[in-house]
């Protein structure tokens, strides 16, 4: 059965749920298509669902757990009448009005939603290494979720690939379990923030493998090691690890909008005048359109902006100034 809505929000991280709180309070009865369970960050609640303590979200003096924060966002929007649909958008047609959105069978003639306006808050997911054997070894030593799997690497030697804040955070978290954590980074300096760098350097269990990229994974039924190639000398070295965690950056979850919404070369949606996209009535917020700040608080802020932009846009459409 097709539902007709004033506002459909696609994505349920801090951006989407903040947009839900604001549009619900404005009596626009939003539906949030929140995604599907997965062990990657492309899931209901978004990237914060795979984190532990959030120390820099304003208002929480002692910090708060990522999943708990998202659960609070969700309940807060629900309190004002937001609805949730646990599914992924399989197809969207922004070429006519109202916009058409499919969540199940994308070949069906009948869309699941007709929407006057759409807020895109689909976020970003972690990049993988794109190596042969990678898919086969996920769950067998290669992990996409440090908080889920760190526990299984007690007293083992493991590695984290990446040089940014999320790599440092994962490495520090993993030292609670592992015997040693080697950070493999393609340059010889980190791009992580000063505070995270200081914490990583001060941690006696953390080692660094500089100027190195992982070029091969080894192990039959379980990861046994990796080959790293030196980015300066091209020399290959085999290193033995029981676990490998990948934190090398992000890619926006915008595939379903390709060819319809204007994007930059990396797939991030281009916004102008606040959260407007190239299609009138479609707004974008959060990491789907931001590769610069990428914080929970900036995503939430842009979600609020999208909600206000939608509200004004709908108001102007329903009551055009004469």
């Amino acid at each position: 059965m097709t539902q007709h809505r004033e506002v459909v929000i696609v994505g349920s991280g801090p951006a989407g749920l903040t947009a839900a709180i604001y549009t619900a309070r404005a009596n626009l009865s939003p539906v949030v298509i929140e995604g599907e369970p997965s062990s990657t960050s492309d899931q209901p609640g978004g990237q914060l669902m795979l984190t532990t303590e959030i120390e820099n979200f304003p208002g929480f003096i002692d910090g708060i757990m990522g999943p708990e924060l998202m659960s609070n966002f969700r309940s807060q929007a629900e309190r004002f009448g937001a609805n949730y649909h646990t599914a992924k958008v399989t197809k969207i047609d922004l070429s006519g009005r109202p916009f058409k959105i499919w969540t199940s069978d994308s070949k069906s003639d009948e869309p699941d939603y007709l929407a006057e306006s759409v807020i895109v808050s689909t976020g970003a997911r972690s990049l993988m290494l794109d190596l042969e054997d990678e898919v086969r070894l996920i769950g067998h030593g290669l992990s996409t979720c440090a908080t889920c799997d760190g526990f299984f690497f007690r007293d083992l030697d493991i590695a984290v690939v990446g040089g940014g804040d999320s790599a440092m955070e994962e490495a520090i978290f993993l030292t609670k379990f592992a015997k040693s954590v080697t950070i493999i980074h393609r340059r010889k300096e980190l791009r992580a923030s000063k505070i995270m760098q200081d914490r990583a350097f001060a941690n006696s269990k953390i080692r660094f493998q500089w100027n190195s990229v992982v070029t091969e994974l080894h192990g039959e039924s379980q990861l046994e090691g990796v080959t790293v190639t030196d980015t300066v000398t091209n020399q290959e070295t085999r290193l033995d690890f029981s676990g490998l965690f990948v934190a090398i950056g992000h890619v926006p979850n915008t595939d379903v909008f390709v060819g319809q919404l204007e994007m930059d070369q990396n797939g991030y949606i281009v916004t102008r005048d606040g959260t407007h996209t190239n299609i009138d009535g479609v707004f974008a917020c959060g990491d789907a359109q931001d590769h610069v700040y990428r914080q929970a608080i900036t995503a939430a802020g842009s979600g609020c902006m999208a909600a206000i932009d939608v509200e004004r846009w709908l108001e102007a459409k329903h009551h055009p100034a004469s």
Partner: protein
Amino acid sequence: MAKIAELNDFNFENSIKESELPLLVDFWAEWCGPCKMIAPILEEISSEREGKIQIAKLNVDTALAAARRYEVMSIPTLILFKDGKPIRRIVGAKSKSSLLRELDPDLS
């Protein structure tokens, strides 16, 4: 509704051997976000497939030996046992429809 049993290191082997229905074991822990997300889905499957499948949970915090024995290194992991033998393994949280797509062929 079919009850979801709690397994531990002591009753695990007997439970998988003695189960008359295919037994799906959910390896989970309190601190695992994706595990919490699939818990309600498993309850739904347990009642919708009543008589075809038995579902049980194993907390890896308290039953690490069983998890190690079946080489569980990532949670949630679901292992389907039939006649005491593991016949299917699903790693990572999935939607209900994709879980059923993987499980249904093994349920008669």
